[in-house]
């Protein structure tokens, strides 16, 4: 089966795809590889999802495997858990970040805890895809970054892809993972393109961060939509050589890659769209500080959303970290 498929896929090798299409191709491959994989969510079938990420998959794999569900997020996750108990590997789509909260109970008290509850007897290979982040001029609840709610939840793995190549591979790794995975997709990067070698196997392990731009003077840590922003900031900064790390995995954190970098540069700025207050940046800053205490020339600084609900779209450029705000933090870390 896998053999056969690899051939199919080989034919399409090294295509240029958007991030959305890359996810689509990754899920197509997962569906073809393993008959137990199913997709569940609102509008994922005929419509192919509001961002067309599941476009064509219902047509190809049928209504039993790409399931348009009633409108209830708790039930999407709750029934996915039941399907997993029957041996399936559901990929659930939450239509927008802000709509994951009705499912919080099923995710936090059931999905995350069931493997430990069963002392390992139960496996929960459920993937929850969440388009996240702002910058698309949307109305309330459509631009949020709720990752910190899930990184604080033991039993979940949390990952974020930032580019089409990772999107293609990471979604497949998530499906293969025996643990439940919260899979964040940077919605404003859905239309970013890259050439992807569709054959072969994943170039980077699922639980590793990647240095996407080497540098010597300070380390920028980011994930999801902010990776591109940090890369642009690093390019724009003519006075410093900035290293940019794409965290990719948020729980667990690949601290090896992070600490190695900060121990080298002595300076660190963490960037995420979620509110700084109580956000994942605090966790990372605390760990970096503990591990690199004597190498730090300045405290780890954080750039992120404010302690406000995501604002109306006419204000979102103020809310979202951008190149200038990143460089402002970089400057502050050098001025410390």
């Amino acid at each position, binding site marked *: 089966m896998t053999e056969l498929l690899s051939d199919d896929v080989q034919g399409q090798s090294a295509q240029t795809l958007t991030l959305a299409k890359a996810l689509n191709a990754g899920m197509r491959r997962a569906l073809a590889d393993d008959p137990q994989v199913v997709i569940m969510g*609102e*509008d994922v*079938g*005929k*419509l*192919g999802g*509001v961002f067309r990420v599941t476009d064509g998959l219902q047509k190809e794999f049928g209504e039993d495997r790409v399931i*348009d*569900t*009633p*409108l*209830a997020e*708790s*039930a999407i996750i709750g029934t996915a858990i039941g399907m997993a108990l029957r041996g399936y590997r559901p990929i659930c789509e939450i239509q927008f970040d*802000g*709509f994951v*909260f*009705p499912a919080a109970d099923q995710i936090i008290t059931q999905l995350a805890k069931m493997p430990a509850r069963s002392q390992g007897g139960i496996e929960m290979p459920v993937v929850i895809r969440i388009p996240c982040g702002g910058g698309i*001029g*949307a*109305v*309330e*609840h459509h631009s949020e970054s709720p990752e910190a709610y899930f990184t604080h939840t033991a039993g979940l793995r949390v990952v974020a892809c930032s580019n089409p190549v990772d999107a293609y591979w990471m979604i497949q790794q998530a499906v293969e993972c025996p643990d439940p995975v919260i899979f964040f997709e940077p919605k404003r990067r859905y239309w970013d393109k890259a050439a992807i070698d569709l054959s072969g196997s994943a170039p980077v392990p699922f639980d590793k961060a990647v240095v996407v731009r080497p540098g010597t003077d300070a380390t920028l840590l980011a994930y999801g939509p902010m990776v591109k922003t940090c890369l642009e900031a690093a390019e724009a900064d003519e006075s410093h050589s900035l290293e940019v790390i794409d965290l990719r995995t948020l729980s667990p954190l690949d601290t090896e890659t992070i600490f190695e970098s900060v121990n080298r540069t002595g300076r660190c700025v963490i960037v995420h769209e979620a509110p*700084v*207050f109580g956000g994942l940046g605090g966790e990372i800053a605390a760990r970096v500080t503990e591990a690199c205490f004597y190498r730090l020339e300045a405290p780890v600084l954080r750039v992120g959303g*404010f*302690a*406000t*609900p995501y*604002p*109306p*779209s*006419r*204000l*979102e450029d*103020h*809310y979202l970290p951008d190149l*200038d*705000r990143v460089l*402002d933090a970089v400057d502050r870390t050098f001025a410390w």
Partner: protein
Amino acid sequence: MTIDVHSVQDAELVQLLTPEGERLEHPDYPLSLSDQQIRELYRDLVVVRALDREAVALTRQGELGLWPSLLGQEAAQVGSGRAMGAHDMVFPTYREHGVAFCRGLPFLEILKMFRGVNHGSWDPKEFGFHLYTIVIGSQALHATGYAMGIQRDGFQENGIGDAAIAYFGDGATSQGDVNEAFVWAAVYNAPVVFFCQNNQWAISEPLERQTKIPLYRRAQGFGFPGIRVDGNDVLATLAVTRRALDLARTGQGPTLIEAFTYRMGAHTTTDDPTRYRHSDELEAWKLKDPIARVKAYLSRSGLAVADFFDEVDAEAKAASRTLREACLALPDPAVSAMFEHVYRAPHQQLDEEQAAYEAYLAGFETTAGSGD
């Protein structure tokens, strides 16, 4: 897939005005309106449709981020909207522009939300119309809690009893919150009306993805009455809603109204319904247009002449023009608006963030000699 939810339609549907404009009587829902009142309803329908169309146009031109059109649902909204008393409180979704209109909310307030100027920040008390709620189903619980408050106020603040009315769609009936609201309303006998606009679609999902039986029957399972009304019939909707509100305000508990209607347009301006539904369905529903039947009735019965219809059209056009101008003139919000209303009491970290950000912005001004 068989849509048995449709087959029962005719027998169970309350209708007072046929698609052809014929006036029917219904034993449970007598309705006597003056000629003037019926003309007013017509006016509401036409103006609401025009304003909605203007908002769609503004969205196409990039002036709004998004617009969920009510096209096809005007009668459900105007009929129910005109059934309310001044002190009733509406808990809408994001599509109740017609109800908003009836409650006296300036349409511009709704546009602000979809232009991204604010999150829909009118004063609910002023209009008896709560803020739009986007998270599907949440507001059904708010309405129920509000109704529990009404009970504790002895039903009236204002001489006549108050009631709460929650709007939601067919898709929303699958949400836990909506069903919990049914439990609570039944258990506490709360003065709340659940007004479900069954427009047959939840984005791309047809009704049979949410239910196997007609939605109004859901109420039976919780122990209160459910009724299906022709949602394209402004008279029937008005009569049915009035009755339900009366029951509520006289302590006779909740009612579920299923307004059977159709979403004639896309889910929102970003949606492409050709991907998931056939045009013949749309064509069939065009014959049941909520405005055409009132016009036919008014004409046929001699309650209105051509001049009246022209006048209304002109009024609608003028209102649309005014709306457009006001929309284009909307100022962007101040940065401080993002920070200032999160808490009423001081919040040290947020206050520091605001101060730091304002200082940061001021830095640009100093550097560049200008700023926003």
